């Protein structure tokens, strides 16, 4: 067996694969075949269903009934002090759920600070986005993440870490469920949701206006009355990630299709592909020198997620935060706050999470005990906050 014939065989195999794989089969199945298959499936399914339908179904019915009771009790408990669930909340929840079940959602932060736009595909779940100068993506099904850095013309393809699909979908700052949950969590501080109908750009829209007391926040959520989907969110103080003083407008639409991959968002086809680390798109961003606003935003998204998890934990542990957080990347430090640190205005000054760094560059992000984030530009200020956090923890 000489090298030439070896090469020839490989060539033949490639040609055979390419020939077979490239065969175009224009016709679909004959209609009568399709009908016959549908009829057969229907018959076989009925046959299976007749055998022990009740035996198979009753545990599910019991479980469903129990779930309904738990949800109803939870809703009553959550909103009890405000009377029965007001229709405005129910309507807004319906719009949020409708929006999140669309095959594709596109969101753009059109005003305030750094711009971003994001596509979320639900079948299967994948995200693509532009944050500042970065193009990022995440294919949950394939467990792959993509971060394109135009400065180095490199596309880092990494493996998605342990974040579950549900966590990824519900903790991003633009996610509607996050907004809604935030409003519910602020109910006990005296916030109110009002519903009105307005004509905006010659179309009738349902507008939900949130007036929060603590924090003092106003949000307008505009819903397409016909489609019952959120089309715009205006917030004078958005959720922590985008800064306390930065008003922002998010516009949502629901295209039929979205990008197939990050290349559709402008990653050059000849970009160098490098292996990325394990983690979500936010986790792969460390506090390295010269990072962009986009990197900071992604890092902030990750911190936001962890802080919310801590708050949830505290809710079921008499207000006490966890001793440590599993799965934090090496560049994030968590400082458990004392119970005194969580009281009143002190919470907004107590650092509970911060980034480490080798050399101070554009700034660092700190998370405080009221779960807000702050980008600290001045190193001296950063050190002061850190010193206070450390002394409080001792």
């Amino acid at each position: 067996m000489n090298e030439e014939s070896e090469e020839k065989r490989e060539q033949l195999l490639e040609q055979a694969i390419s020939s077979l794989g490239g065969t175009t089969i224009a016709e679909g199945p004959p209609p009568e075949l399709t009908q016959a298959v549908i009829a057969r499936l229907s018959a076989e399914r009925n046959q299976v269903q007749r055998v022990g339908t009740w035996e198979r179904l009753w545990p599910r019915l019991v479980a469903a009934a129990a779930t309904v009771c738990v949800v109803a009790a939870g809703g009553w408990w959550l909103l009890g002090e405000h009377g029965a669930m007001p229709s405005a909340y129910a309507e807004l929840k319906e719009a949020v759920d409708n929006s999140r079940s669309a095959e594709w959602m596109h969101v753009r932060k059109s005003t305030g600070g750094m711009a971003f736009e994001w596509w979320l595909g639900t079948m299967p779940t994948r995200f693509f986005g532009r944050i500042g100068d970065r193009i990022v993506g995440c294919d949950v099904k394939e467990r792959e993440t993509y971060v394109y850095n135009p400065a180095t013309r490199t596309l880092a393809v990494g493996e998605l870490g342990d974040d579950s699909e549900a966590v990824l979908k519900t903790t991003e700052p633009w996610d509607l469920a996050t907004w809604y949950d935030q409003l519910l969590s602020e109910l006990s501080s005296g916030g109110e949701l009002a519903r009105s109908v307005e004509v905006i750009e010659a179309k009738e829209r349902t507008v939900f206006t949130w007036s929060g007391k603590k924090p003092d926040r106003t949000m307008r959520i505009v819903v397409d009355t016909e489609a019952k989907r959120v089309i715009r969110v205006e917030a004078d103080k958005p959720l922590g990630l985008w800064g306390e003083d930065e008003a922002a407008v998010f516009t949502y639409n629901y295209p039929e299709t979205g990008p197939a991959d990050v290349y559709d968002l402008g990653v050059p086809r000849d970009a160098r592909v490098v292996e990325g680390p394990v983690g979500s798109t936010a986790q792969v961003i460390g506090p390295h020198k010269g990072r962009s606003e986009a990197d900071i935003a992604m890092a902030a998204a990750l911190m936001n997620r962890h802080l919310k998890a801590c708050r949830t934990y505290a809710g079921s542990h008499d207000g006490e935060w966890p001793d440590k957080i599993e799965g934090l990347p090496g560049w994030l430090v968590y400082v458990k706050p004392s119970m005194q640190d969580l009281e009143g205005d002190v919470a907004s000054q107590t650092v509970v999470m911060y980034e480490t760094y080798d050399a101070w560059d554009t700034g660092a992000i700190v998370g405080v005990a009221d779960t807000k984030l702050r980008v600290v530009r001045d190193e001296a200020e950063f050190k002061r906050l850190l010193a206070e956090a450390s002394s409080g923890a001792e």
Partner: protein
Amino acid sequence: MVIDWAKVVRKHGQVVWQTAYRLLADHEDAADAFQETFVSALQITQRGGVRDWSGLLRTLATRRALDQLRRRYRLAGRSERQADLSQLPSTNPSPAQRAAASELQERLREAMALLTPQQAEAFCLRHLEHMSYRQIARQLGLTVNSVSALLHRARMHLRESMREDLASKQKGEQK
């Protein structure tokens, strides 16, 4: 959850048909594989939910079509035909070249029928269905490393089959 099978068949029927027909190049065989694919899917859904219909149905269609291929070559015995390897498909094929390409495809089908079922499935899903390693691993219930090893072995065997063709061709040329 009740599955609307009429909807599933109509939505995915085209891709199932294409997968089966590409491998079988025969209307009757493809129709059998088509039907068996959906019946297998029905049985799977009775054991649990399906997250990726397209991936599942393409895998099942490949599996059923490969079953048909194996039956076909078992019944016919090893084919005596040898492809005319001097004429390979080009971008603008003449009738003779098309015939040669068809022969080559048939040769690959026969060679795939001789692979182990798992090797053949992994090979088809990768090279004909263009699935990623991870998708194949998930569909076959294997690790990515196992898929990689299966593909390596499948390719090795198929190259060997091509050697037989090459040897036949060289003999033919000497005559």
